[in-house]
């Protein structure tokens, strides 16, 4: 295993969490995602970097602008003129601000006195306006962890971007449903000591966010970016890490990439490699619009070649595979030696030249070390080049929105009413209800934790049974495609009430939930009726039948026949009678049969 301390490993996390608010951050549209098929209208637009972005200030915007793109937006009956960039934004969503203040308080952060909304320039099309609205809310907090506490430098409240649906032939399509959903963006200090530590911190931050009970859950509602560097390397930002396990893997693989690239640099130095800015026009020798560069001394570094091809890919071009006869023809013209690496691209001239220049930029950087850049996480834990790191100066005030004063009394009120952290709740459940760690954790992080406590307060039932019913059983049913979203608090309470009164058996719960899910407006009495509650005499009949059928088996196995027969009986009764009662009857019948045959 790598010694991360020795490597000078430094890492930070940036977490983006969608908030579960009634409206979006700057309009009143609901914060729900839609299916593309539900489209109501489309818009086609172009974005243009305004003059100063093309100055020295922002290299990321400049590079994006080089790629000429037509943008299509898809809108729904849940998106409005604000998302369309056709109406000024409404005032900052108070509910979202409140949640961000709660999170800031949970992380012991210092909240600013006035929150100012800024415009952060983003011209890839993901924001219809060409900028993302974002506001700095708090700084200087801390998250505690077993492997060491980590500072939380910033907490910002911002609007989510539109979701990219597809991109082809210089045309990109975005869906407007996600645009404007409130997001909390938190950045940690670069104090993460190892990939495993990184994972732990991400888990803890997720736990704190979910403890508010007011964040969105499910795939895509929380996104992590990772910042990694090692000594002698460079700060590399990796976007879109999908889950917690990947955080660890992505960090590990980035360290390996940087180690290897540093080795490559040393070897390039040894060889005296150079990145000469000469682009050869080979249209006369090969196809028209063929251009090539010769990177002297760059041959034989697989890792670096991938970095080069990532750059070319960004322009939608492919590297031409040179065969021997091609090489022979070019050898003289381009003065190619054994250790040289040749790139040949064919296509639209402007694009090809931009792509080759981008490769040359990367080659120049390779001679110095590792370039600072933004990369995209891939499903296998590796990354690919996305763009240079954005400059810090891409922000200017959102003049359409008034700054918001954060009253100290409001902060005090929030501090006095902070939600219980899920981790603390879990501990409380383990101690108070003697739940094991898994079940305690399951219900502590569940949206139904309050219902659980309420049920435990009223009814004398085993906590394990209540948690399993609320969580495991419901999950099983969901997997069976039962519409469990129809199940309400009242359904569960009525079930537990009847259970506590002995009117139903615990084995019957899944069946009753199934009925409620299908027909949520029924009263439990009807459901019990319909799910065929059986009186004991009926059960006895069925048990008797089975015992008669399996008489030989009973004779053979004696009391050992109980377990296999119990399974059979319960399947037949389908949980309509309490298992304990069934067990008693069956046991009695078996011993009767055994003693009969003895006679």
């Amino acid at each position, binding site marked *: 295993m790598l010694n991360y301390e020795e490597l000078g490993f430094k890492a930070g996390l940036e977490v983006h969490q969608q908030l579960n608010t009634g409206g979006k951050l700057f309009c009143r549209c609901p914060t729900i995602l839609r299916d593309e098929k539900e489209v109501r209208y489309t818009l086609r*637009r*172009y974005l243009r970097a*305004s003059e100063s972005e093309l100055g*020295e200030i922002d290299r990321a915007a400049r590079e994006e602008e080089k790629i000429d793109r037509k943008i299509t937006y898809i809108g729904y009956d849940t998106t409005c003129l604000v998302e369309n960039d056709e109406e000024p934004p409404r005032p900052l969503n108070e509910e979202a601000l409140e949640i961000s203040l709660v999170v800031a308080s949970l992380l012991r952060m210092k909240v600013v006195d006035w929150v100012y909304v800024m415009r952060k320039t983003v011209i890839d099309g993901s924001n219809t306006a060409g900028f993302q609205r974002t506001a700095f809310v708090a700084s200087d907090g801390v998250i505690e962890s077993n492997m060491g506490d980590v500072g939380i430098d910033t907490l910002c409240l911002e609007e989510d971007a539109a979701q990219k649906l597809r991109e082809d032939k210089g045309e990109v399509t975005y869906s407007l449903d996600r645009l404007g959903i409130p997001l909390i963006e938190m950045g940690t200090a670069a104090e993460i000591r190892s990939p495993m530590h990184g994972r732990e911190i991400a888990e803890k931050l997720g736990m704190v966010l979910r403890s508010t009970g007011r964040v969105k859950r499910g795939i895509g509602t929380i996104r992590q970016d990772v910042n990694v560097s090692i000594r002698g390397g460079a700060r590399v930002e990796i976007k879109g890490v999908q889950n917690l396990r990947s955080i660890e893997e992505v960090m590990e693989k980035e360290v390996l990439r940087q180690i290897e690239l540093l080795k490559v640099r040393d070897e390039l130095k040894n060889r005296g490699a150079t990145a000469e800015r000469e682009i050869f026009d080979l249209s006369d020798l090969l196809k028209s619009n063929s251009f090539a560069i010769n990177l002297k001394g760059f041959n034989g570094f697989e890792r670096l070649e991938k970095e080069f091809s990532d750059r070319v890919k960004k322009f939608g071009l492919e590297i031409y595979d040179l065969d021997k006869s091609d090489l022979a023809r070019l050898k003289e013209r381009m003065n190619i030696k054994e250790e040289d690496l040749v790139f040949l691209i064919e296509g639209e001239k402007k694009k090809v030249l931009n792509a080759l220049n981008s490769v040359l930029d990367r080659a120049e950087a390779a001679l110095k070390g590792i370039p600072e850049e933004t990369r995209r996480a891939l499903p296998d834990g590796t990354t690919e080049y996305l763009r240079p790191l954005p400059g810090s*100066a891409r922000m200017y005030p959102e003049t359409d929105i008034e700054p918001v004063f954060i009253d100290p009394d409001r902060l005090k009120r929030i501090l006095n009413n902070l939600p219980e952290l899920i981790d603390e709740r879990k501990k409380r459940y383990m101690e108070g209800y003697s739940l094991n760690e898994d079940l305690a954790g399951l219900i502590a992080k569940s949206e139904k934790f309050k219902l659980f406590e309420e049920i435990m307060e009223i009814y004398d039932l085993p906590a394990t049974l209540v948690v399993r019913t609320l969580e495991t059983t419901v999950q099983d049913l969901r997997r069976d495609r039962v519409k469990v979203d129809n199940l309400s608090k009242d359904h569960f309470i009525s079930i537990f009430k009847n259970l506590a009164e002995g009117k139903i058996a615990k084995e019957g719960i899944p069946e009753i939930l199934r009925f409620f899910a299908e027909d949520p407006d029924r009263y439990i009495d009807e459901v019990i009726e319909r799910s065929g509650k059986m009186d004991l005499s009926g059960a006895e009949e069925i048990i008797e039948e089975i015992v008669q059928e399996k008489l030989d088996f009973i004779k053979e196995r004696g009391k050992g026949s109980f377990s296999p027969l119990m399974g059979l009986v319960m399947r037949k009764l389908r949980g309509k009678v309490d298992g304990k009662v069934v067990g008693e009857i069956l046991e009695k019948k078996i011993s009767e049969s055994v003693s009969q045959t003895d006679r």
Partner: protein
Amino acid sequence: MFNANEGNRVKIIKDGLEYRGIVMPSPKSKDTLVLKLASGYNIGIKIDEKTKIEIMGDEKFSISKPKRSLGERESEKTKRDLVKKSLPKVSIISTGGTIASRVDYRTGAVTSQFKAEDIMRAIPELSDIATYDSEIPFNILSENMSPKHWIKLARLTYDKIKKGSYGVIITHGTDTMGFTSSSLSFMLRTPVPVVLVGSQRSSDRPSSDSYVNAICAARVATSDISEVSVVMHGSTSDDFCLIHGGTKVRKMHTSRRDAFHSVNSSPLGRVIYPGLEIEEFQPHKRRGEEELRLYDKLEERCALIKFYPGADPNIIDFYVDDGYKGLVIEGTGLGHVSSEWIPQLKADIPIVITSQCIYGRVCDRVYGTGREMLKAGVIEGEDMLPETALTKLMWVLGQTDDLEEVRSLMQKNIVGEITRSSITS
């Protein structure tokens, strides 16, 4: 209360926390300081007795021209483009609407650019269409425009055309663009295109409609459509701009890009973006068809009154007593006011009736009230927009004070403001 000034680089210590940044223009209340952090974010800090402020240095705030990323070559190219001989010469008159602007990311200040060279740098495509000279007669928001400004604009446009402009572009705030375009339509007879253009999204944002609008306006200014027109987005997408006749156009939405509509008439045509092909929907005046003329007299003492249920007719006496020379009423439906207003309508000044329906033609011969209004002397404004009826009345009263002549001119089409028949669109 504190000693830091705009532009100071400061360190602020409050409640044990240190903030570093540049002091931004701060609100009037003396106890709050707006700080731009290194990350680019602004925050507001309430300064109390315990807050410590330390001044670390100064940041120059003057907005300098940014260095071109592509080096000097580019600016030489721009200069060369400006004098490209083969391209027609177009005049840009800026009135305060921003056709091109620049953001200073340190201060957040947005500066409008009016010099031809600056505009060209912000919208390089313009230099493929024409060469430009530019002039800024005044710099105001369009709600602050007045007939005096319209006259000034008419005269300036006249001068530009006289000096040989192949077309004139007037950049204008959108709120009152329809008033300006209709008043210019009456004051100028032009042998070349005169195009008003603006934007609904400010040009400091990458999504601004100003780029497409400006490019399409330049296309129209160099076309054969030699009328006063308004060129603005025709849809919410960046796919075409409509060319509206100057007397028939109205802003019909507070914020959308396609807010401008031609009312009671189809637009003159449209410009497809990005191909810049022009499609014509209506016959128009050809280049050189009209001789250049200027009728720059307006009677400013005219008013536009909106009638509503229960409205007090004394409003007419108020204007008459105050010396007003003409009134336009925005009546209900076919052009009505309540019968209570009839005595006041008998005033000695011309009173033109239009409709708050906006769409359609007035007709006061259908109902009794209307017939009484006609008897009292009101002039039917046909299918003119109320705003156009106002600017026309100002212009007509600037040409004559003969009441019968006024009546006849108001009901006669002069520059496309009245259509012969109400078309189905």
